C-alpha cells in the first residue's frame, strides 16, 4: 500500500505570529494512500500546519514537501493535484450547486463527472438549489464536492463533518473511506475522536505546536499511556493498579492465586481508549504551576 516517496513530509516545521509561536518544530510523514489524522485542542497549531501544507501560509522554518513539491512556492501543478476542504469557508451566495461543481471541475485537468460527484456527496436532490439556501451540513457537503471534483491525489480535510447529523457523518465517513480505496491520500484534522478512530490509519496528537504522540489509533493507548489492572482480592476488596506493562503484575497475581488455590475474581485489564489518551495528553497544564511536559 504505502509506496515510494511520502505524500507529505514535514521536518522541524516552525511558524510564529508576533510573539506567539504557533508551531514549534513539528515532524511527521504521510505515506501515499494513507489517511492521517491531526488531533488536538483548539489553538494547538493544527490549522496553521495544514494551511502551510496547502500553500496559504509561509513557514518560518523547517522543511515541507507535498507530493514532492514545496507548497510555499504555490506551484499550479500542485494545486491541480490537491483538494482542500477548509475549516470555514464561504461560497458565492447565488450560485447553484451544479453550477459551482461544474465551474470547479473546469479548473482541473482531469476532473471527475460533475453529476457523479454531486451524488457521491449526497446533494443529488439539491442539484439546482442556490448555495445560500443550503443548511450547514449541506454546505459542508458542497465543500467536499468542490474538493473532490478535480480528482485530487491528496485531500486536506479540516474538520470536514462539523455540523453534520449522525447519518450525514456516517455517509461522509463512507465517502472518505472510498477515497482511500481509490488510493488517495487524506490529511484529516478533527476534534472528534471517534472520527479519527473510524477513519485514520495513523494519528498525531498536537499540543502547543508540537506532536505529543503519533501512531495508529488502536496502538496509541499502549504506546503512550498506562494500562489499568483491576481485580477483587481475597478479602473482597477491589484493587486497581496502573502500570506501564501489565505482564509482571498479572504473573504475580495469577501465581499467587494458583498458589493459594483462590480464584482471581473480577480481573480486568483496560487499555485506555484514544479518548483517554487524548484527554491525558492534552490536559490543560496551565492550571498546574509546574513546567509543561516537553
Amino acid at each position, binding site marked *: 500500500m504505502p509506496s515510494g516517496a511520502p505524500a507529505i513530509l514535514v521536518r522541524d516545521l516552525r511558524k510564529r505570529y508576533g510573539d506567539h509561536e504557533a508551531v514549534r518544530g513539528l515532524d511527521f510523514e504521510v505515506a501515499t494512500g494513507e489517511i492521517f489524522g491531526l488531533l488536538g485542542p483548539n489553538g494547538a497549531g493544527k490549522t496553521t500546519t495544514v494551511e502551510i501544507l*496547502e*500553500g*496559504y501560509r509561509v513557514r518560518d522554518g523547517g522543511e515541507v514537501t507535498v507530493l514532492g513539491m514545496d507548497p510555499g512556492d504555490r506551484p*499550479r501543478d500542485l*494545486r*491541480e493535484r*490537491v483538494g*482542500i476542504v*477548509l475549516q*470555514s*469557508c*464561504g*461560497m*458565492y*451566495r*447565488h*450560485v447553484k450547486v451544479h*453550477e459551482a461543481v461544474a*465551474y*470547479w471541475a*473546469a*479548473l*482541473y485537468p482531469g476532473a471527475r463527472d460533475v453529476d457523479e460527484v454531486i451524488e457521491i456527496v449526497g446533494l443529488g436532490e439539491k442539484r439546482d438549489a*442556490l448555495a445560500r439556501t443550503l443548511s450547514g451540513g449541506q454546505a459542508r457537503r458542497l465543500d467536499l464536492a*468542490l474538493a473532490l471534483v*478535480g480528482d485530487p491525489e491528496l485531500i486536506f480535510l479540516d474538520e470536514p463533518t462539523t455540523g453534520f447529523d449522525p447519518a450525514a457523518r456516517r455517509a461522509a465517513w463512507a465517502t472518505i473511506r472510498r477515497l482511500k480505496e481509490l488510493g488517495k491520500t487524506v490529511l484529516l484534522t478533527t476534534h472528534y475522536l471517534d472520527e479519527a478512530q473510524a477513519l485514520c490509519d495513523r494519528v498525531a496528537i498536537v499540543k502547543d505546536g508540537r506532536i505529543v504522540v503519533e501512531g495508529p489509533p488502536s496502538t496509541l493507548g499502549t504506546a503512550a499511556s498506562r494500562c489499568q489492572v483491576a481485580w477483587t482480592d481475597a478479602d473482597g476488596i477491589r484493587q486497581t493498579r496502573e502500570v506501564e506493562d501489565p505482564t509482571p503484575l498479572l504473573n504475580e497475581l495469577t501465581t499467587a492465586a494458583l498458589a493459594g488455590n483462590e480464584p482471581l475474581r473480577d480481573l480486568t485489564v483496560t487499555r485506555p481508549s484514544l479518548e483517554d489518551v487524548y484527554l491525558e495528553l492534552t490536559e490543560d497544564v496551565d492550571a498546574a504551576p509546574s513546567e509543561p511536559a516537553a
Partner: protein
Amino acid sequence: MSDMTLAWRHYRLERRMFWRNPTAAFFSFVLPLIFLVLFGAISDDDQLRIIVPGIAGLSVMATTFNALAMQMTFLRDAGVLKRMHGTPLPGRSYLAGVLGSAATNALVQIAIVVLASRFAFGLGWPENWLTLVIFTLLGVSCFAAIGVAFSYVIPNFEAAPAYTNIIFLPVIFISGVFYDVEKVPTFLHDIANALPLVHVINGLQAALVTGKPLHDLLSDLAVLLLWAALGAVAAVRGFRWDARGS
C-alpha cells in the same frame, strides 16, 4: 484550459451572480438615473453640459472603485477568496473576470447616460465616440484596479461602506461632478488634478459635449495611465485572501 478561457468562465460566473441578485443590480443602475433626473430638473443647458459628463464619470467610479472595494472585502471576509486561492485558478484569470464584470456595469451606465442626454435632455449624440470609448475604458481600468487594491486596506466588510465613501464622496465633490471644476479653490483643484476622476471627466466632457480632440487630452491620458499602472501593480502584488493583521 488557458488562462484566457478561465478568465472568460469567471467573467460569466460573475455576471450570473450579479443578475441573480436583482435588487442589487437594479439599484446599481438606478443611481446615475436618479442623479440625471434630479439635475435635469434643476439645470439649464449650460449646466447640463457640465453635469452630464460629471455623472458619467461618477458612474464609472461607483461601478468600479466602490463596487469592487466592497465586493472584494465581502468575498475575503466570507472566505470565498481563500477558497479560490486553493484552486488552480490563476490569480490573474480571477482578477480579469472580476474586473471585466465591473467594466460591463460601467459600460451599461455610460450607455444609460448617453441615451438620457440624447433623448431626455436633447444634448445630442456624443461628439467623439473614440474619445468616449478610450476614456471610459481607461477610467474603468484605473478605478477597478484601485478599488481592488483599496480593499486590501479595509479591515472588514462592516467597515467597507465607510472606507469607500470617505474616498468617494470628497473625490466626487472636488472633481467637478456637479459644477465646473475651474470654480474649485486652487489647493483643492491641485489635489483633484492629482487624482484620476477629474481626468476621466475631462475626457468624457470632450467626448460627450465639447468635441475637444484627443491630442489636446494627452495630459489627462498620461495621468490615467499612470494611475491604472500603479493600481494594477498594487492590486496584483498586494493580493491577500485574509484580512490584514489576522
